[in-house]
């Protein structure tokens, strides 16, 4: 019967449609290719590249690009390419994870505050509190309290990673929360929410099914900006002594160290800057494409 024939169709699910739409967005596809390339590079690059980020060719300091060192060397004679690859691992991981935490917290609190009127006041004052907290002293307190514990539990690198991701995450969710709340407030008054209520949809599914998909676009922007923010913040943290150990390169740190030597060795400042910008740009285009693809009104066009 036709039933079976048609039954197959819905199996093709929305995700296939989303992918179809995503594919038609050249920026998004390019962004994704680029992002995947960067990920693969930083993941496998260090295994293949003939210099380790810890190799110091101290007599070849501050060199420009050459065949041996395609991106040149830094002030201690590290191979810049090896450093960028190794730094990318940390930066990308920190960027994506911290952004994830921040977006999750922001969306969670924003939706709760916007949807449940009773929680609104309390949660928004909590947001105010977090916005008002002085970041630096807070960081110092957090390091003091947790650095040694985490270092012992997870080793110096993983411990610091957890700390950094946690710190960036819990100090950057507020803007997302406010935006999401604003959108939810408006969305809640829409009739389809009332319709779902008349069906008896419980609040958690109401949020997942009706509210969240309709506030995706500001969340998507926050996420894109969040990655850049986390990568930069990480570099600021390492200069406060909260970052990774000194021999542990990250893009932000490489950029900051190289800035001082900008006129001396311009290449060194260009690479990490380029890496950060292109990553953020590619994530942004992916987000753009994904947002379009997730919006059926655009997909239909």
């Amino acid at each position: 019967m036709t039933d079976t024939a048609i039954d197959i169709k819905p199996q093709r699910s929305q995700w296939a449609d989303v992918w179809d739409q995503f594919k038609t967005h050249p920026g998004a596809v390019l962004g994704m290719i680029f992002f995947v390339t960067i990920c693969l590079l930083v993941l496998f690059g260090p295994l293949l590249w003939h210099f380790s980020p810890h190799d110091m060719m101290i007599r070849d300091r501050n060199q420009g690009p050459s065949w041996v060192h395609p991106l040149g060397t830094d002030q201690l004679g590290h191979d810049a390419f090896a450093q960028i690859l190794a730094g990318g691992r940390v930066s990308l991981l920190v960027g994506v994870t911290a952004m994830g935490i921040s977006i999750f917290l922001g969306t969670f609190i924003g939706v709760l505050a916007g949807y449940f009127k009773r929680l609104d006041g309390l949660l928004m004052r909590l947001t105010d509190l977090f916005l008002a907290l002085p970041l630096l002293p807070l960081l110092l307190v957090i390091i003091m309290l947790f650095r040694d514990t985490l270092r012992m539990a997870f080793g110096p690198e993983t411990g610091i990673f957890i700390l950094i991701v946690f710190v960036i995450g819990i100090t950057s969710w507020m803007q997302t929360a406010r935006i999401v709340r604003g959108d939810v407030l408006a969305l809640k008054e829409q009739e389809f929410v009332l319709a779902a209520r008349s069906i008896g949809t419980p609040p958690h599914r109401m949020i997942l099914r009706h509210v969240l998909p309709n506030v995706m676009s500001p969340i998507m922007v926050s996420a894109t900006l969040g990655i850049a923010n986390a990568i930069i913040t990480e570099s600021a943290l390492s200069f406060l002594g909260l970052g990774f150990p000194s021999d542990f390169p990250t893009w932000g740190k490489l950029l900051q160290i190289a800035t001082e030597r900008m006129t001396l060795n311009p290449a060194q400042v260009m690479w990490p800057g380029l890496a950060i910008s292109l990553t953020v740009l590619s994530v942004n285009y992916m987000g753009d494409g994904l947002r379009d693809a997730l919006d059926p009104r655009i997909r239909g066009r």
Partner: protein
Amino acid sequence: MSAQQPLVQVRNLKMYFPIYRGVLRRQVGEVKAVDDVSFDIFKGETLGLVGESGCGKSSAGRAILRLYDVTDGQIILEGTDIAAMHGKELRQLRPEMQMIFQDPQASLNPRMTVASIIAEPLDEHRKLDKRARMERVFELMDAVGLNRDFANRFPHEFSGGQRQRIGIARALALNPKFIVCDEPIAALDVSIQAQVVNLLEDLQERMGLTYLFISHDLSMVRHLATRVAVMYLGRIVELASRDQLYEDPRHPYTEALLSAVPEPDPSLESTRERIILQGDVPSPSNPPKGCNFCTRCPKVMDICTQETPPFKKLEDGRYAACHLL
């Protein structure tokens, strides 16, 4: 007609929205959106609820479905009072009663496909496997006259009438006994209105549905309803069977309303005498003392400004609230 069983009994239903004023949010009054309303809805009938916009008819409809918390009174659905129910209990009764909304655009989530919109009630209340679920969705789409191929489309791809069909299909999904139609055709083109109304009638016949049909369109109500209740400023002023009401309105407000309905017959239309009401509808937060209608009633008497007229039975199945009667 006589041995009718009430499906829904509304008793002294009150829906007040408190008004807070001042810095300390003291309650200084309330909007009496629905003020002491009682009526029955019988199984299989269509009760029309008419009145000007803002008279509280939509609030009454939503209160009866418990989309709002009611202030006081009883709503008895098949013997169970749901007025004070909450949470799980209420949720279990949801399949019994459904709603069709005024704005077919706004009432459909733009990010869900037709199939998932229609299936949402099923997902919430029936444990169906994928296949059974889809079958039911197609069944419903057939029932409301939607092409099955549209199942994967999104609301914005449809016309207003089609969207309303989606809304109807969603309301029907759980085989409800009682449906509140909250001005379901007000937002549609006239040509589509008829189609939707015919569909509703058709479905009622086939599935034995009971409707509370809220509308400000008296001619449509006349076409559709079995009995009609007229609301003014949160109260029901008259309740009667359709024919009685349209042919012999008793309450001055009903008279005035009906006088505004154009007659299809041109000869009658020319003789129609329009009663033009003076003034505006008073604010529901500050209704006049005595009869709510006293400020605009052409037949106002002294007593009207003193005492609230009781909602009394005039004859079998006929009620009104007026000192004249």
